[in-house]
């Protein structure tokens, strides 16, 4: 397994606060690497070191080496724009540029000197297709990008990032702002893309890491706790802290206090039934819902969150059915 990115003794500081402590690890080429760990452990910071977006933060300092294709990204004298062009970024919240769908995708190629209209047209079509968005937007390429749904915007960001022909795709919790259907869409695109790109994904969602990752890096409070292939880390972690983290986030799977099957119900009704079911539960208990209505997959968790309950997970269990786990709050 060849490393595409080699991280050597990287330390990162925000003022006095040390966010990364002597990280040394390699990221394998043309695989999906998941960076996992609790909130605030430095996952985003590490990602921002790769493409030097950390330079934008006043008072941030980074030392060490990050070697990509023989070039040290952290070296002050290299051309940052070239480094960034090689790494597409998929942010946590989709951030379309204030322009049309077409211009969003054409933005990068135009910056790097493609002016030919026909070539741009081809590029836009090609990458919108790769991101799985082409069919939905091909008739309104000139309309503003922020009119798209959030899920579509995220796929647009993917297309935009791919259009500058990077070798690496960096994703910072790319699905955390998306509904389950859109999340699944993005995950599928990433799985397809790993044949051609090295993908690094930061995620809070251990299920997502299990579904996607070939290689896993576990950070805790700025330290590298463990790294290895997904099999090793998930099946047989060497470190107790990794085991605890994985179990801690998986534990909600084990005990459900009540289960309601809402298959065959359409939208306002499954919502009402879910509410009733939660009503009969005590605070802190966990309800498992099975739904098969696509709108319910989005609307039920949203509604339950609006009522103050905690949605623990939403996942597809087979072709038609989705499982929604909710913890009663309030």
């Amino acid at each position, binding site marked *: 397994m060849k490393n595409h990115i080699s991280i050597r003794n990287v330390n990162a500081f925000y003022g006095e606060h040390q966010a990364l402590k002597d990280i040394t690890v390699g990221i394998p080429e043309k695989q999906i690497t998941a960076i996992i760990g609790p909130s605030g452990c430095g996952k985003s910071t590490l990602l921002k070191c790769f*493409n030097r*977006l950390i330079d*934008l933060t*006043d008072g941030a300092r980074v030392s060490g080496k990050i070697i990509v294709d023989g070039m040290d990204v952290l070296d002050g004298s290299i051309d940052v*724009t*070239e480094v*960034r*062009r090689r*790494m*597409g*970024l998929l*942010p946590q*919240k989709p*951030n*379309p*540029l*204030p*322009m*049309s769908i077409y211009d969003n995708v054409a*933005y*990068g190629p135009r*910056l*790097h000197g493609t002016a030919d209209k026909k070539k741009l047209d081809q590029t836009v079509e090609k990458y919108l297709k790769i991101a799985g968005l082409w069919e939905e937007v091909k008739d309104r390429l*000139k*309309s*503003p990008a922020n*009119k798209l749904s959030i899920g579509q915007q995220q796929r647009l*960001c993917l297309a*935009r*990032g791919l259009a*500058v022909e990077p070798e690496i795709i960096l994703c910072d919790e790319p699905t955390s702002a998306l509904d389950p259907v859109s999340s699944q869409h993005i995950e599928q695109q990433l799985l397809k893309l790993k044949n051609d790109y090295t993908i690094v994904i930061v995620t809070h969602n251990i299920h997502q890491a299990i579904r996607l990752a070939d290689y896993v890096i576990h950070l805790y409070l700025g330290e590298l706790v463990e790294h290895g292939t997904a099999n090793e880390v998930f099946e047989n972690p060497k470190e107790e802290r990794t085991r605890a983290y994985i179990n801690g986030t998986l534990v909600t799977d084990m005990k459900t206090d009540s289960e309601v099957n809402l298959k065959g119900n359409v939208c306002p009704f499954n919502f009402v039934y879910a509410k009733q079911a939660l009503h009969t539960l005590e605070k802190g208990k966990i309800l498992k819902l099975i739904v098969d209505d696509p709108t319910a997959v989005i609307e039920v968790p949203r509604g339950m969150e609006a009522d103050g309950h905690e949605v623990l997970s939403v996942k597809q269990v087979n072709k038609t059915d989705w499982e929604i786990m909710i913890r009663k709050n309030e």
Partner: protein
Amino acid sequence: MQIRRFKDVLAGRFMLAAAFFSSILVFIIAIALYLRSKPILEAKSLGDLLLGSTWMPFQGEFGFYPFILGTLYVTALAMVFAVPLSILSAIYLAEYAHENARARILPMIDLLAGIPPVVYGVWGVLAVVPLISDIAPVIGKLGIPFLSMESYSTGYSLLAGSIVLAIMVFPIIISISEQVLRAVPFEVREASLSLGATRWQTIKHAVMRIAYPGIAAAVILGFSRAFGETMAVLMVVGNVPIVPSSIFDSAYPLPALIANNYGEMMSIPLYDSALLLAALILMLVILFFTLAARLILVRIERRMTNG
């Protein structure tokens, strides 16, 4: 209960009246000015007044053309200086300057806005006017259109007026534009930079697109300030009622005309009426520009939201 309701109604009525009054104030002023300038409008044709270039109140000649052009020229030239410089300063402060530098420079710029116009006027007389009287003959000989000057210049000129005016307009445009730029979401910059754009490309293609309406508003505010500014301009512009043909010529903007003459020699027939007509014209010109600016802004905003 009754009294409470009564008070509520009364307060409501009162505030309505106050709001109504302040909103019709502009019409009241316009009508009053119109009534007072009626005698001259009846005696002369509007065409003669607006397009006539002779200003000889004793002979009964009231041509406003030099004053109207004087106002437009001084304002326009001031904006030519002020707009690019202040937008670039705002971009520097918002996008490039280190936080410490920004925290030091911005308050200074705000201070600039607080200096009374008369002080700018004095500074203009002491610093700008002599400088122009020195350079005018040198540049004037080159024979560039609008920059010509025969032999000698006092320095009291269109150029002096617009330099002073430009500096007075700076702080308005800079501080508003800077706020507008900084309000542009960080994600936009992140998106653009992560695609390999340079900082300048990011500003030009992404940040400015969002900041554009706000910066246009800042420029318009600057414009309206420049139009009506009287004191500082009056002190350096020369106040000669001719149509300026070069930036080194003197000019006589409308506000200066009114401020210099109102209340003196009012026994001359129609003089009072003529000056109030000048006020009316000034008001209408400013109103026209402000409205036009509003319309442009609305257009821009609509285009931004609809893509």
